[in-house]
């Protein structure tokens, strides 16, 4: 992780101003403040407040006040003065631990939000010359803009370059670079770029120089692969292409795998991935035949590799292939070879961790042994060690691994999980908080320079807000769990300042405020939950009992104010872009334009392939969403690449899913919408404009309800 000089938090500055920091912390804070203009300005403001406060006028009461008082008393006037109440007792914790985990889990999901920009003009074209470049070769780029980007003096082509080893989940997914394209007088914008020597694959998008308008080829991006001298794409290039496509378009990802097995039949990697993906989409009747063919191919590969000297990656591919074939003996055999060849290979440790052929104790010992060797002290080993501690539910062990891993952690989610483990324990809390603050600084400063190709700078800011909110809420929850409600509230306040509407945050903060006995401040969060259209009413009904003195009028006023706040915050995160043209197929086989299906109604497009992911929670959310929208003008359309079939109808009947389902043949519409992942929720207003890509179905329902409130629908 990049070390960044950390600014003291607002709470720390306040404690410094109030002389509540211990000597060490005070010294460190003062030293920072002296050198930091931002913190110095904040500190000055706090001091100025005090000076101004104490210098405020201090007039005596008017001379006639006493006479008025005595006269009124003599007339029999009496006032009933409020009592100074005794200090309240802190309330007990309200949120069960499991629910608290769910809060964070749902927020953590925020961090995976993908915001796509305006679907680019369809007429644009990008030509790469040579079309089959070698690694290290210079390519010439010629771009013919669509309507949106015509007339610019210059354009910027941005690339995300991936090398052979760019592999999730690590964030070494490549590097960003850019090329300025200039007009050639013939309606084209041209430029050139030197591919790096280790180049495998790149995706590209074109934008104006401000980044506000971009052409990402309708969400699909342009791509270029590295080739061999004979014009064959390199296996690394196909693998990287597959990794990019697997979350965006399954048909295209499958095509990439098919290409790999055709061009490189001797590589187990392509076959194992193909088998895994076929399992998701092939009818059960064909599966047995297909698997038999794969088993035969696996034996051929085994014979070839046994005679040669395979690399660790080749051996790892055989482990994966054997696992996909559910051949336990083959898995054990190739795993043994992998461990002998490369004990710290990620795959070897992953299999240890799922207890394949070993128990957790053995797995833990194995990873500790790896860690004892200097050269194996890698991020991969760290992840495995930390996961072992989590599986064992051993807090001390987890803390030890967190301390080891933090300097090596290279993505925010992992670093946050590690830091929260430290925050949970009093001895390491300060360090954990410090690490999270460094992450916050890192997020603030880094996202702009590593802007994903689909994002405008404004969208990057939005995503940064989401990520920072996630970090702060995570910290707030952990502080509350650790018995630090004051710090938790302030952290959640800071999270709220980032502008998102988050009922889970309000619920958490309400609990923190109740735990310090502040019913008055807690009531604001109650009003927010009360105003939220999807927050469970039974929970609201339960919470309202905590405020027995609140009158119906006060509740209504508070709810109204909170509703205004919700509308403002929800609409602030909107994408607002046009809907690409598209057609969907009804169960009866009729092809209809999307506009026809929308019919001017505010709509949630639920993009969901239930064959890829069918979880009880998905079904429950769909049922709840349809209930919430029942009888209103809003609607949910379920869009799936799955053809109409008895299996699909049976699935709908089994779970009582009454929403209409339409097929998106070849996922054409989904791709044009920038569909990433296995589910997506797109909110479209009554005029046919996309208003947001929601992170969850409930968030989409909330957004729809906000649009229906209508106050700013036309803004």
């Amino acid at each position, binding site marked *: 992780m990049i070390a960044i000089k950390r600014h003291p938090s607002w709470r720390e500055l306040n404690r410094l101003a109030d002389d509540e920091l211990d000597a060490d912390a005070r010294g460190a804070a003062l030293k920072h403040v002296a050198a930091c203009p931002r913190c110095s300005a904040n500190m000055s403001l706090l001091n100025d*407040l005090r000076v101004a406060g104490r210098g405020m*006028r201090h007039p005596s009461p008017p001379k006639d006040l*006493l006479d008025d008082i005595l006269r009124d008393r003599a007339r029999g006037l*009496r006032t009933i003065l*409020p009592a100074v109440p005794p200090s309240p007792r802190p309330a007990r914790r309200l949120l069960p631990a499991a629910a608290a985990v769910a809060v964070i889990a749902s927020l953590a999901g925020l961090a995976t939000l993908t915001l796509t920009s305006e679907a680019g003009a369809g007429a644009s074209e990008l030509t790469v010359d040579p079309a089959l470049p070698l690694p290290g070769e210079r390519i010439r780029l010629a771009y013919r803009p669509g309507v949106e980007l015509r007339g610019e003096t210059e354009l910027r082509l941005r690339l995300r370059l991936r090398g052979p080893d760019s592999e999730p989940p690590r964030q070494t997914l490549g590097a960003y670079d850019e090329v300025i394209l200039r007009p050639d007088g013939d309606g084209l914008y041209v430029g050139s770029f030197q591919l790096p020597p280790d180049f495998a694959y790149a995706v590209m998008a074109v934008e104006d120089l401000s980044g506000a308008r971009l052409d990402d080829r309708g969400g699909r991006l342009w791509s270029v692969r590295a080739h061999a001298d004979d014009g064959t794409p390199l296996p690394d290039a196909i693998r990287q292409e597959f990794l990019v496509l697997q979350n965006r378009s399954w048909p295209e990802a499958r095509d990439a795998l098919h290409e790999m097995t055709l061009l490189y039949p001797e590589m187990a990697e392509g076959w194992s991935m193909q088998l895994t993906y076929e399992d998701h989409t092939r009818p059960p009747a064909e599966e047995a035949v297909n698997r038999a063919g794969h088993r035969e191919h696996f034996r051929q590969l085994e014979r070839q590799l046994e005679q040669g000297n395979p690399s660790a990656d080749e051996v790892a591919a055989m482990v994966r292939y054997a696992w996909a074939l559910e051949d336990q003996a083959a898995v054990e055999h190739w795993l043994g070879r992998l461990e002998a060849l490369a004990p710290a290979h990620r795959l070897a440790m992953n299999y240890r961790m799922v207890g394949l052929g070993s128990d957790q104790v053995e797995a833990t010992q194995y990873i500790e042994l790896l860690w004892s060797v200097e050269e194996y002290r890698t991020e991969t080993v760290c992840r495995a060690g930390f996961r072992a501690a989590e599986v064992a539910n051993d807090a001390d062990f987890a803390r030890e691994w967190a301390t080891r891993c933090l300097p090596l952690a290279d993505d925010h989610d992992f670093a946050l999980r590690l830091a929260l483990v430290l925050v949970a324990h009093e001895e390491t809390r300060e360090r954990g908080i410090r690490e999270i603050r460094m992450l916050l600084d890192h997020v603030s400063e880094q996202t702009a320079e590593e802007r994903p190709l689909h994002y405008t700078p404004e969208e990057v800011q939005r995503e940064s807000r989401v990520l920072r909110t996630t970090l702060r809420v995570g910290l707030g929850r952990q502080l509350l769990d650790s018995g630090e409600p*004051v710090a938790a509230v302030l952290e959640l306040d800071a999270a709220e300042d980032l502008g998102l509407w988050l009922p889970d945050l309000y619920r958490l903060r309400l609990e923190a405020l109740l735990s310090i*006995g*502040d019913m008055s401040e807690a009531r604001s969060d109650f009003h927010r939950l009360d105003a939220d259209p999807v927050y469970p009413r039974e929970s609201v009904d339960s919470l309202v009992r905590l405020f027995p003195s609140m009158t119906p009028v006060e509740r209504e006023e508070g709810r109204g104010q909170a509703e205004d706040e919700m509308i403002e915050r929800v609409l602030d995160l909107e994408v607002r872009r046009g809907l690409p043209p598209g057609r969907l197929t009804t169960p009866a086989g009729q092809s209809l334009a999307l506009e026809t299906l929308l019919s001017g109604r505010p709509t949630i497009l639920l993009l969901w392939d239930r064959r890829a992911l069918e979880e009880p929670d998905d079904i429950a959310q769909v049922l709840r969403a349809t209930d919430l929208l029942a009888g209103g003008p809003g609607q949910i359309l379920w869009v799936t690449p799955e053809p109409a079939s008895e299996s699909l109808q049976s699935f709908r009947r089994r779970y009582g899913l009454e929403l209409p389902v339409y097929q998106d043949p070849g996922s054409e519409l989904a791709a044009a919408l920038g569909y990433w992942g296995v589910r997506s929720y797109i909110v479209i207003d009554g005029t046919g404009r996309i208003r947001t890509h929601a992170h969850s179905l409930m968030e989409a329902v909330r957004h729809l309800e906000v649009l229906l409130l209508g106050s700013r629908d036309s803004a």
Partner: protein
Amino acid sequence: MHHRIDDRRTNVSENNPNPTLLSRLGRGEADALREVYERYADDVYRVALRLTGSSADAYDVAHDVFVGLPEAMQRYDPNRPFGSWLRGVAVRTAQMRLRSARRRREVALPNVAGLAVRSRQEAVVDRLTLEKALDELSPDLRSVVVLRELEGLSYQEIADLLGITKSAAAVRLHRARRRLKDILRGNR
């Protein structure tokens, strides 16, 4: 007539009126009320003025406090400093008034962003600016700022006065200061 705040607080807590005076006050004797008024009216009026930001409201608060004081003496614990207790009563009365006044308010508050601090060199939050900014805070947040920054009370004293926990006092103070920061820098 600026006191050092800590000195003033010490004086109040150490010099309770004698029990006879307080007994007479409890019986509603006008002379006793006059005597208590002359000793504590400045404190009551000042805190009311700072909390409400309006001399008319401060007048009404001080009026209500002293008119109702004899009856309220039934709730006074003689083991507590009288001045602190009376100030607490004044704070609560002012808060009640502020809440009802806010509900009645129909005219938008003046924009104080124009008075905002621009840089460290000119970073003087003057009295007028602070008074206007305080008016933007909710009654609860305004109270903690007044009691901390203007009255110089500790977190625990604020908590005792407002009937909240010390933690709640800390949270409200931090929230109030951050809100003031936003108001003074025009970031609302």
